[in-house]
């Protein structure tokens, strides 16, 4: 990764080849009667065309919420975006009026979800639902829209598309439903596709088919793909770059090869050690101790420090680098790699 965040001039100017989407210092919080849940706490990233960026994290790490903020589909209230910028085609989406946002996002950014059955409307045929994109954004007639729907179903390799276009979602298998979702998402040739755990509910053999399809479509259209997942294997096989999230922050970022072979953050390191491999029967697993943090009471300093084996507290710590007191910023550790740990050099062994 050569372009690092902080500034993304090409996105702001609306031109250039590099990043199409830039998220800057994004915060999302959920205000409830009892407390405030800080789901996303200042994340920044960019996605270029043709790039696949994986956002890797466990449940509650803020990976889905940040994507929902980009799509503008957070339930507000309780969700609020107190700070942040989302730059797309030269415009900050968060400052646009709602109707303008819809016009930009509709054809430009689309999203697919984990649970395809509950994301599809059970009382409309899939052809009607895929065609809706053309009717809403291109003003096509029902007949024309359906013709496009069949073409799209062919493109996502649904067999016998012309016969199945009038079928309802419950008549399709899980893998086929996810293809219908993908057909809807790519209908208007989006620049960015956000895939939120697209294969988590699917079996491995179907997962392989769907990931293959996504990669092929990306090659054809050159869209940027944001892949949200907790599956290390999927990240390794599909993504170019990876951002690891923990407690609403990005704790490490770099190319997949670098991050997976030599993690620079103890959390990433812990994840790698705690997952068994299919190719080798290893010895005992080394789990990360403790539980993921409560987002309404995120630990002080480094949010990972209560579970970290490498933490240094009080007198052990270098000045200004107390894991319980000083929050480590996401910083450049070695070229092309950022990590939010005071002691990343030690983790890397450089």
């Amino acid at each position, binding site marked *: 990764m050569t372009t690092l965040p902080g500034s993304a001039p090409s996105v702001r100017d609306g031109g250039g080849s590099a990043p199409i989407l830039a998220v800057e210092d994004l915060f999302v919080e959920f205000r409830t009667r009892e407390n405030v849940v800080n789901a996303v706490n200042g994340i920044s990233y960019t996605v270029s065309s043709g790039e696949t960026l994986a956002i890797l994290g466990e449940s509650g790490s803020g990976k889905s919420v940040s994507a929902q903020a980009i799509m503008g589909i957070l339930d507000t209230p309780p969700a609020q975006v107190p700070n942040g910028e989302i730059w797309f085609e030269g415009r900050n989406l968060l400052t646009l009026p709602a109707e303008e946002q819809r016009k930009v996002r509709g054809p430009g950014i689309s999203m697919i979800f984990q649970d395809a059955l509950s994301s599809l409307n059970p009382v409309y045929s899939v052809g009607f639902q895929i065609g809706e994109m053309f009717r809403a954004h291109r003003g096509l007639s029902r007949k024309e829209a359906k013709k496009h729907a069949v073409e799209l179903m062919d493109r996502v390799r649904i067999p016998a598309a012309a016969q199945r276009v009038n079928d309802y979602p419950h008549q399709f298998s899980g893998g086929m439903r996810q293809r219908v979702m993908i057909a809807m998402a790519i209908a208007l040739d989006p620049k960015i596709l956000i895939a939120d755990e697209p294969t988590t509910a699917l079996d*491995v*053999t179907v997962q392989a088919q769907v990931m293959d399809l996504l990669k092929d479509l990306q090659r054809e259209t050159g869209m940027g793909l944001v892949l949200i997942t907790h599956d290390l294997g999927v990240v390794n096989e599909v993504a170019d770059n990876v951002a690891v999230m923990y407690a609403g922050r990005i704790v490490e970022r770099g190319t997949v090869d670098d991050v997976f072979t030599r993690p620079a953050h103890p959390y990433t390191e812990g994840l790698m050690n705690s997952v068994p*491999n*299919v*190719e080798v029967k290893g010895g005992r*697993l080394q*789990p990360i101790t403790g*539980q993921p943090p409560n987002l309404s009471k995120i630990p002080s300093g480094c949010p990972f420090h209560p579970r970290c084996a490498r933490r240094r507290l009080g007198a052990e710590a270098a000045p200004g680098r107390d894991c319980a007191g000083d929050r480590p910023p996401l910083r450049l550790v070695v070229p092309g790699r950022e990590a939010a740990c005071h002691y990343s050099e030690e983790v890397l062994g450089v």
Partner: protein
Amino acid sequence: MSEAAGATAASVPSDSESALPPAPPPGAPLLEIKGLKKHFPLTQGVVFKRTVGHVRAVDGVDLTLRRGETLGLVGESGCGKSTVSKLLVALEKPTAGEILYKGRDVAKMGGRALKQYRREVQIIFQDPYASLNPRMTVGDIVAEGWSVHADIAPRKGRLQRTQELMDRVGLNPDFVNRYPHQFSGGQRQRIGIARALALQPEIIVCDEPVSALDVSVQAQVVNLLEDLQDDFGLSYLFIAHDLSVVRHISDRVAVMYLGSVVEEGTDAQVYGSPSHPYTQALLSSVPLHEPALRGQKDRILLQGDVPSPANPPSGCRFRTRCWKAQDICAVEPPALVDRGQGHPSACHFAEARTVVPVDVD
């Protein structure tokens, strides 16, 4: 644990009623499943229900679980692995076939023997949220089994026993009066494990025990299960769809497809030299974590979906998606036997093939 039961057994006359014999030595078969079938009827009509067909959820499964070992059962959703687990804990009655536990057929057990069987074969469920009663405290949940099997824990020391069990599975014993919603997913799964352990079982059926957990927590629960096996000599039937986890924990692995076992062997045999086309395709679909191995495995992309178990293909179940299929496959269902590849495989054209690159280090 069996001494007490064995002593009282002498006074009970009927064979089906009498208590079960003590457990065999480690390594000897403890549980044998022979030709197990479970067909669920498909009905039509509201008032006058008539049967229009059957879902062949489990259709002829043979498995052996030895004492102290872990048998992994893998397969995709709908292949019948969870139905096998329900049949094993006697929550469902088999349509045909038998489950032999310590040499006795479970379907023919009654009274005392069935009660003892149900105590000795426990289950841990996939969903730690749905499998715990939200209105009961952890202490009540763990101790509930003792109200049926009162001989295991004397009434007096139950609180202490509960707290010991909680400590054993890594829960703070002071939380004995808390409710399930006050715990995280991983902790709840530990409560489920403590509940299973409370009845001093011989076998624990683990039905997708870590699938609902976060990756960093999965490893904690897997390690706990391994420790408990070493300490108590437990046998596990470990059902999961995650092939990596199954390989890690299992001594032997059986692969299921559409209601029957297609391949069986030690973990090294099944993962190192899979010989059934379905196993090969399944393994090749698993994404690898190692960047160095990317693109090094055989890519076998299966076409289409799993056929409906209500109307499975004739002959070999897998033939509709198989690249090796020939005329014989549609006629004759292949038996699960060794055809020279070193372990049983239910394919007429079984041939060992390395799909996943093994051992980089």
